[in-house]
């Protein structure tokens, strides 16, 4: 009891007012542990730890919090402690009631207790109570969420048998982000990847997927659902074989009547991607070996670059480097006349002073929005297109509309702790 009292005193200081003025954890990386005296008798220890790793990761995927399992530090330095018990348990003054009714409880100070008289089961097991679902719920309490009665909320007080795969819905995500803010960060590149598919009737259809890349991992963004794919981010080397594992500077898809080539750029080199075999070319059909030097493949363009995109309207690749823009004519295989030019000339500010001013992180043509976006830091600028000019003819061609925050347009692109990348 004295030990717990010391923990209480210490843990009180870990809570502070969040950005929204609510009580929440004040730090962004939290340590957790399944305590040794609190193992369940129903699942193997490894299964229990795996389920908790997954539960914490699910919260990481929708919030700016990261969680790391800590099995070494002194217990008082661990932020969230989990354990199983029955009846009187783990020094807790809230006795469990046996099989049925109460299955777990959690405390703001970071302890989560599970009633081991309940029949807890692993994910995707038909009967029993899903430990994963209960853990996600209780972690929600530890983070500061109350019970929510909305159907579909993970914070409903009563347990509902798990659907084939439960996930955090839109409102639950907003609830946790109300406490801790949205997920922000710079991106290495953003692109829509075109792929061709054959229907059962043999017709070829064109589809695209949106990808956000940051350093050594990436997310697939589901535009129709306004969120990332469940379970992302993924390590770059898993989904994009052969490109630098620590990240890229740019992605360009040259797509015209005569050409269809995907390139990744990093440093002074670039790679061509083989969509058919889902990896980079070592040697493409034209006989070029990769990686190639940017100066060799795109004469006149100085590397390393910040980012690039291909504009199908004029068949040019626009390379961005510092405050300059290099427009490369793909057909002529040379820089377009008059380039390089200042970014402010090529993409003038619609509102004076509201401009990225160079060193852009990503240039992204979105098929969803049919427009180009320039991203820098946590902000983005939308490039004036034909639709905007129809509404406001006074807008300059390729002007940059006033900036917005990336996380107000693309939601929940959240990091997880590196140890959680592979569970």
């Amino acid at each position, binding site marked *: 009891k004295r030990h*717990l009292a010391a923990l209480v005193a210490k843990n009180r200081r870990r809570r502070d007012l969040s950005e929204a003025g609510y009580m929440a954890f004040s730090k962004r990386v939290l340590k957790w542990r399944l305590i040794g005296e609190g193992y369940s008798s129903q699942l193997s220890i490894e299964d229990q730890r795996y389920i908790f790793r997954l539960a914490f990761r699910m919260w990481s995927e929708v919030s700016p919090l990261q969680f790391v399992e800590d099995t070494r530090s002194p217990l008082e330095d661990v932020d969230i402690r989990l354990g199983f018990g029955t*009846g009187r348990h783990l020094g807790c003054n809230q006795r469990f009631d046996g099989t*049925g009714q109460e299955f777990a409880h959690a405390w703001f*100070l970071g302890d989560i207790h599970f009633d081991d008289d309940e029949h807890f089961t692993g994910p995707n*097991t038909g009967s029993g109570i899903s430990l994963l679902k209960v853990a996600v719920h209780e972690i929600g309490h530890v983070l500061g969420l*109350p019970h929510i*009665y909305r159907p579909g909320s993970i914070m409903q007080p009563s*347990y509902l048998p798990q659907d084939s795969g439960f996930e955090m819905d839109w409102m639950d995500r907003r609830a946790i982000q109300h406490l801790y803010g949205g997920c922000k960060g710079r991106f290495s590149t953003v692109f829509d990847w075109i792929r061709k598919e054959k229907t059962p009737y043999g017709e070829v259809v064109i589809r695209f997927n949106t990808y956000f890349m940051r350093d050594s991992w990436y997310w697939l963004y589901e535009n129709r659902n306004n969120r990332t794919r469940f379970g992302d981010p993924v390590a770059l080397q898993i989904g994009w074989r052969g490109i630098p594992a620590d990240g890229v500077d740019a992605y360009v898809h040259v797509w015209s009547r005569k050409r269809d080539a995907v390139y990744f750029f990093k440093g002074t080199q670039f790679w061509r991607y083989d969509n058919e075999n889902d990896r980079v070319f070592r040697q493409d059909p034209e006989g070029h070996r990769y990686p190639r030097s940017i100066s060799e493949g795109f004469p006149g363009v100085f590397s390393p670059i910040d980012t690039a995109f291909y504009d199908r309207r004029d068949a040019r690749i626009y390379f961005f480097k510092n405050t300059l823009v290099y427009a490369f004519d793909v057909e002529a295989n040379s820089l377009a006349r008059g380039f390089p030019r200042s970014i402010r000339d090529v993409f003038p500010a619609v509102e004076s002073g509201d401009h990225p001013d160079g060193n852009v992180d990503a240039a992204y043509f979105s098929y969803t929005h049919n427009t180009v976006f320039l991203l820098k830091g946590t902000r983005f600028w939308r490039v004036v297109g034909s639709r905007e000019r129809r509404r406001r003819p006074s807008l300059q061609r390729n002007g940059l509309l006033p900036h917005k925050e990336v996380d107000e347009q693309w939601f929940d692109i959240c990091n997880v702790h590196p140890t959680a990348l592979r569970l």
Partner: protein
Amino acid sequence: EKVFHNRDHSDVQNFNSRQAEAITDKYAAELFLSRYGFIKPVNWEEIQLEDLEPSSHSDLLDDFEGIIQEGTSSHYSRDSRVFVSALEEFQRVSALPVTGVFDEATKEAMNKPRCGVPDKEVDPNDPVRSHRRRQSVNISVDVHESRAVRRR
């Protein structure tokens, strides 16, 4: 160990496990409503903190039972408006027909597996909470304190 035969422990048998007492009557229902804050918001954080003193360690359920039995009986009884109001609130948030009656549907809902954290808590973000901690808490803590004093 609990006996099992399947590799994934899916058939684990709980011969000796306790069964939670089913909520079958209004008395138990009142305890339920009180425990989870429907009669009066629970100061959940206060409860976990107070009992770290060995001398004041007690069973919360006993405290709630003590409330019903001992005595500030003027606060509520089974047929009181407070109980009915709490029951209706529980029915409302549980998407049940709001009858104010401890009916079968309500009984079933109360007996479902659920989280032990109260549904209605004293707002932890109340800026004056720290000053009202001793005054705003419900009868359970008053009785708890008096019992703790008696114990000492």
